């Protein structure tokens, strides 16, 4: 946890980042945010992907966006005007990105001000980073106390995540002040059958290369895609699904609970269960 004081006093700024695109940052930001809010925490998720915003869609708030992060940074709107409260969870808020502008509209000083203001009202500030290593990504991580590195178990995602970890250790305020920035790995789109067949990296291989603690494993799941298209984070839309359970466990670990990480079980079809076929070891 950041700094001293009890959990309720200190707010935590979390950056959800990956390097590689399409691995599940926005999905995870929304799902973790919702899961934390379901545990009673006051949460705001901020979309840093200026020009290609997605967080509002995944949260189902796209028809209520009036002001965005760029407006607040540039002083055109006050923060409360831009924050959108979730209709389903009263302690969950969204600060959307601008769709018509680009990342150069954001300044470090402006983002810093916004985050400081948010710290006063929220327990968790989740920064959904864009893909890449340019300004959008570096600004999203700049003020973080904790990083969740989202990685798919495949080689290019792992290498990009390694790059991002290197940047987390050097381009953040905490790193520049000589403090340690806590980093945790969220392995997404994991398919145990394919890993067993050697078509996908194993969890141990990813952990060996990235060498950061594991926050959780979210298995490949059609429930996640459904939830995105319906505009509701999977932890709310389908709480019984494996993905929702994985995100809920991850949120509880962020809150300090110790829960053993389980690899998601193989999804065995009806026929294979009937005939007792096992995947190749």
């Amino acid at each position: 946890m950041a700094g001293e004081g009890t959990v309720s006093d200190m707010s935590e700024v979390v950056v959800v980042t990956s390097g590689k695109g399409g691995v599940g940052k926005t999905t995870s930001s929304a799902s973790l945010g919702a899961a934390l809010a379901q545990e009673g925490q006051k949460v705001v998720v901020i979309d840093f992907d200026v020009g290609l915003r997605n967080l509002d869609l995944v949260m189902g708030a796209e028809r209520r966006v009036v002001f965005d992060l760029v407006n607040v940074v540039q002083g055109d709107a006050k923060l409360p005007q831009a924050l959108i409260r979730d209709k389903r969870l009263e302690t969950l808020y969204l600060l959307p990105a601008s769709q018509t502008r680009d990342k150069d509209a954001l300044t470090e000083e402006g983002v810093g001000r916004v985050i400081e203001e948010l710290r006063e009202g929220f327990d968790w500030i989740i920064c959904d980073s864009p893909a890449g290593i340019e300004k959008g990504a570096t600004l999203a991580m700049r003020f973080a106390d904790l990083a969740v590195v989202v990685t798919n178990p495949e080689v290019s995602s792992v290498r990009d995540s390694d790059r991002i970890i290197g940047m987390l250790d050097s381009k953040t305020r905490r790193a520049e002040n000589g403090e340690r920035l806590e980093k945790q790995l969220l392995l997404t789109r994991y398919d145990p059958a394919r890993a067993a067949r050697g078509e996908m990296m194993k969890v141990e291989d990813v952990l060996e290369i990235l060498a950061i603690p594991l926050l959780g494993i979210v298995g490949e799941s059609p429930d996640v895609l459904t939830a995105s298209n319906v505009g509701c984070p999977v932890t709310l839309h389908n709480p019984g699904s494996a993905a929702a359970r994985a995100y809920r466990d991850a949120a509880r670990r962020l809150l300090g609970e110790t829960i053993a990480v389980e690899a998601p079980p193989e999804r065995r079809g009806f026929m294979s269960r009937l005939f007792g076929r096992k995947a190749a070891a």
Partner: protein
Amino acid sequence: MPAQLYPGPSLATASGSGPETDPDRLSPPALRVRGRSIMALVIAPEPPFGDWFAALDEQMRRSAGFFADRPVVVDLGAVLENAGRDAIPVALEGIEERGLRVIGAEGVGPNLLGGTRWALLPTRLQGRDVAQSPPEPTSPAADPDAADPPAAAAASLLVDRPVRSGQSVVFEDGDIVVVGAVASGAEVIAGGSIHVYGALRGRALAGLKTGAEARIFCRRLEAELVGVDQFYRTAEHWGAGLHGRAVQVRCDRGALQLSALD
């Protein structure tokens, strides 16, 4: 100034008799002595010694190679004037402690060194001052992300965490030791040898200064490219046989040799 010492005919002529003119005595072998002009560094300690030696230490820390193997002449004029002759051995002691090679002193007469360890130090070295540019700091750099390696001893740089993809660790003054893995897309470049206590997955280039005698050692070879001195190889050259094993890379008769260590 070149000088030649040669007990030759001129001596014999002067003395009238000698080895050359006496056939029963063998002439001593001719001793050839050459002259050479070299540049020594002149340093001038000034009291208070605490401050001056601190400044010297800082200079030596920042540019480890600048003083290495350079002959040093100590100008003791300021010491004598401000602190007296008893301070002379203190100043010389402090300089020698730091590994500097003192070959002469100036600003003092030889009688002032009498009775000390430095009684035989030349004090009448003839020479001319020449322009000497200030030493440039050669502190180890790691860019583009400036992941900061711990302060280096004069001969080796220790990096005790993994080198992440995109990071570049460069240390021209000696060896690099990495405790951890070197990620794919990272590079380690050393003036001397490279020792990786972990998997080497990126690039390693050794011997920028020490040339072909440098080596690369790693616990697991999964590198993309290795090089020693001017020779390099990419992973497709050494194939699958050495992949994943503890390997040593060295330069042998003008070619790169990779061999398993286990």
